[in-house]
């Protein structure tokens, strides 16, 4: 049941909605005053971006791509006041975010498994895959390796992507494109303050030396003390009556992109330190020494060259660091700290060719290799329980053909074969038929298979015979997805998408309590079957108003028991609109998100909830100065996300109303 129950709040909501409607109409009146582009020198004119969102790009892409795609641009990130990548994904059809007050987890199409770290979603930064090599995690909250302010575009490609990308691309591929000196020129200084004693500062500098040489450097610092929290599960005098204030969060980010002709470099480093307030893993509740440190480093080089219009080569090589250190405080006749750590080091390389041998065929083929220099896990206090050192290699080859069979029909067929030292080979195809009925109507029929290799955490983690033992040998998880998509332009302002899908996951890795020794061990245990629909409407008007509304329904069931999965809300509805209030200066971004109830691990339910976020952005107060003010969870709705097996809390409370003010100056 919805948790807003005071009439006052409802009245406030109605008032806000009415105001917003009025603002929309007002915006129209203001829209007719054209900005004086005629006074701008032609060179600068070429740098002015058309309205904003890459809506046209979106349309073009979706109708071509063998998948259902959503694109979110930097302009929307700013105007909706998104603080992390998790906020962006939360707004996207079919996706939902679970936050356990340490990490954010992505749910896609009804699937989100507690106890793992988004290993079934592949995240790329400027084409470099960043899922790390211990837990396969992708971390979209404050651990995401690039400051949200430096993201130019987020492409969300739903469905299986293993036929091109290999491992992890089961449910979605998220491609994050960062800014470069073309999109962030000169000096930009940004500062923000927010609720819960939160501050963020950033300084960036972008320079174009000439057309093909440019450089962007940026540094960010973020610190939040976090709210004071109360957990009723710990409401006992021995545990401070359930009150804690160790939800602090802190990160830095150093970032660089540079382009020299066909070569481009992306380097980013983000260390983050988080207090863990939930008393998870049976730790001593309320001790501020319970904390995790994660840091990720990416240094990636990409080479792109179009030899002719019909032949292009793309190569990339990257080096990655991932470090995790967890301090967990336990009470066993005196407090002591148990330390848990992971060290990942790896190289990635890929060589890709794109060719059009004839008018009607576009071929893409390539080879990818990952060499894991270190995949080390350690757990110790006075004794060492785990000290596991690994290194490994895996590689894949792939080919895809985009074949224009007839005028309106395109067939896309691709297949990739991957080889792993741990389990051997796996081959994953994708077939897509795209029928472009007219400029307005596109129909897609899609089939794909994808896999996830068991990671070293699942294979080798053990704590010396206390709770967990190593599996040592596991098979990959697989998914098969069938999907039909209709994309329809409704008029010159509106376009709609409907997608229906069915997927089946097999050999899903889960922990199993071995009765012979009472130890937990990973096994290829589960099956999942899901059916769902996603509908979305996108709108964009000449007066600058744009938005999207979506509704998705999914029933994701356990293949054996037929029970609805935990942490799987059936209904998601999202409504986003940006409207100018004063043309070219003041914008309002409103977001209303609905998530239906989701089952917890104890077969209770986390209530359904509505969250409303509102951001006002005032651009060019004086030239180059921008002020934005955001209210998150405007109606102070109390809601929670299902907890994991490591939590005593069945449901973990989320933040109530909070505020942010942000000032950015470019010169």
């Amino acid at each position, binding site marked *: 049941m919805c948790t807003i129950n005071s009439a006052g709040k409802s009245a406030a909501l109605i008032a806000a909605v009415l105001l917003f409607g009025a603002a929309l109409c007002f915006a129209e009146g203001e829209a007719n005053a*054209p900005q004086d582009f005629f006074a701008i020198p032609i060179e600068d004119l070429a740098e002015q971006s058309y309205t904003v969102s890459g809506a046209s790009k979106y349309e073009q892409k979706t109708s071509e791509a063998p998948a259902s795609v959503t694109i979110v641009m930097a302009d929307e990130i700013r105007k909706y006041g998104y603080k992390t990548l998790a906020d962006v994904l939360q707004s996207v059809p079919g996706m939902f975010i679970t936050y356990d007050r340490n990490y954010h987890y992505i749910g896609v199409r009804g699937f989100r498994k507690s106890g793992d770290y988004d290993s079934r979603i592949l995240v790329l930064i400027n084409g470099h895959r960043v899922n790390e090599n211990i837990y396969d995690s992708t971390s979209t909250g404050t651990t995401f390796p690039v400051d949200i302010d430096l993201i130019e575009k987020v492409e969300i490609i739903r469905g299986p992507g293993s036929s091109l990308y290999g491992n992890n691309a089961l449910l979605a591929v998220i491609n994050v494109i960062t800014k470069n000196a073309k999109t962030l020129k000169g000096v930009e200084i940004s500062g923000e303050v927010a609720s819960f004693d939160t501050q963020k500062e950033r300084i960036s500098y972008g320079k174009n030396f000439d057309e093909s040489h440019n450089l962007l450097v940026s540094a960010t610092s973020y610190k939040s003390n976090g709210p004071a929290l109360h957990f009723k599960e710990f409401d006992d005098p021995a545990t401070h009556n359930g009150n804690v204030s160790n939800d602090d969060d802190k990160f830095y980010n150093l970032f660089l992109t540079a382009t020299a002709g066909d070569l481009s470099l992306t380097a980013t480093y983000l260390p983050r330190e988080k207090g863990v307030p939930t008393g998870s893993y049976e730790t001593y509740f309320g001790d501020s020494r319970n904390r995790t440190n994660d840091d990720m480093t990416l240094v990636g080089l990409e080479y792109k060259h179009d030899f002719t219009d019909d032949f292009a080569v793309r190569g990339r090589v990257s080096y990655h660091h991932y470090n995790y250190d967890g301090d967990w405080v336990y009470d066993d006749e005196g407090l002591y700290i148990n330390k848990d750590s992971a060290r990942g080091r790896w190289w990635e390389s890929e060589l890709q060719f794109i060719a059009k041998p004839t008018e009607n065929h576009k071929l893409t083929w390539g080879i990818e290799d990952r060499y894991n220099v270190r995949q080390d896990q350690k757990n110790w206090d006075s004794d060492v329980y785990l000290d596991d050192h690994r290194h490994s290699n895996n590689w894949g080859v792939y080919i895809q053909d985009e074949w224009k069979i007839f005028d309106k029909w395109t067939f896309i067929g691709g297949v990739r074969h991957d080889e792993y030292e741990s389990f051997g080979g796996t081959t994953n195809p994708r077939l897509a038929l795209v029928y472009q009925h007219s400029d307005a109507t596109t129909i897609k029929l899609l089939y794909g298979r994808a896999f996830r290799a068991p990671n070293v955490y699942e294979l080798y983690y053990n704590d010396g015979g206390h709770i967990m033992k190593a599996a040592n040998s596991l098979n990959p998880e697989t998914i098969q997805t069938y999907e039909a998509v209709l994309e329809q332009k409704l008029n010159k302002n*509106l376009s709609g998408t409907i997608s229906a899908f069915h997927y089946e996951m097999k050999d899903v890795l889960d922990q199993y309590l071995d009765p012979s020794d009472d130890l937990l061990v990973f096994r290829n245990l589960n099956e999942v079957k899901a059916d769902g629909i996603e509908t979305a409407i996108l*709108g964009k008007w000449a*007066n600058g108003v744009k938005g999207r509304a979506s509704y998705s329904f999914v029933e994701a069931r356990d293949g054996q028991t037929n029970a609805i999965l935990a942490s799987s809300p059936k209904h998601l509805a999202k409504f986003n609109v940006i409207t100018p209030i004063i043309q070219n200066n003041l914008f309002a971004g409103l977001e209303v998100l609905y998530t239906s109830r989701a089952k917890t691990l104890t077969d209770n339910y986390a209530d359904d909830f509505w969250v409303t976020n509102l951001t006002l952005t005032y651009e060019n107060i004086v030239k180059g100065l921008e002020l934005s003010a955001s209210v998150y969870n405007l109606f102070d709705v109390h809601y929670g996300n299902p907890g994991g097996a490591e939590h005593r809390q069945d449901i973990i409370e989320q933040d109530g109303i909070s505020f942010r003010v942000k000032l950015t100056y470019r010169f």
Partner: protein
Amino acid sequence: MKIRVYSLMLLCLIFAAVVCADDAPIQSREHQIKAAFLYNFVQFTDWPAGKLAEPNTITIGLLGEHPFGDAFDPVKNKTVKNKRLNIKNLGRFRKSFPQSREGHQTVDDAGKLEFVNYIEQLRKCHVLFICDSERENFKAIIDAVKGYGVLTVGETADFLDFNGIITFIPGTEKAVFEVNQKVCEQEGLKISSKVLRLARKVITDKDPAVDKDK
């Protein structure tokens, strides 16, 4: 049953957005920028002496269902190159004029004269912007103004294949354009290097791709 209330409000809001916004004149930022580009093209193009000889105006013609709205208002009747800038709406291209009510073609002299006058108007333009709506007639239009020193500008990816001179590439986030320098030279136009430098691609004589349509 708060959900229903909220859904209703959502619907109201969407409705408000649609109603308020749908009737707004289509004059997006994109076309404000493109209008400014056309204005700049006038400034940075040299026409053959004959083309600038006659009346005291420079004309930007807009052909098709163009989305400029009143984007040109700030520069209407302004002086460019010592001449008054004239923005001319030419409506949709009339290939087979005139037609009787029944749709049968009539071939009376008055009709022919009207058609000739219409083509004449196109030929007098200095810059002729041809909208996507005229896609079927690109060839006919460009053939009709061939040899009259008209700087044709389109916003369709394959506009240059029809021997158009400049085209804005659709689906980009900023104004990206390509120039067909070969046709430009044939028409006796000289586009300043200031403009050419900004072009994504300049097709010169050496490039055989242009001959596709011949």
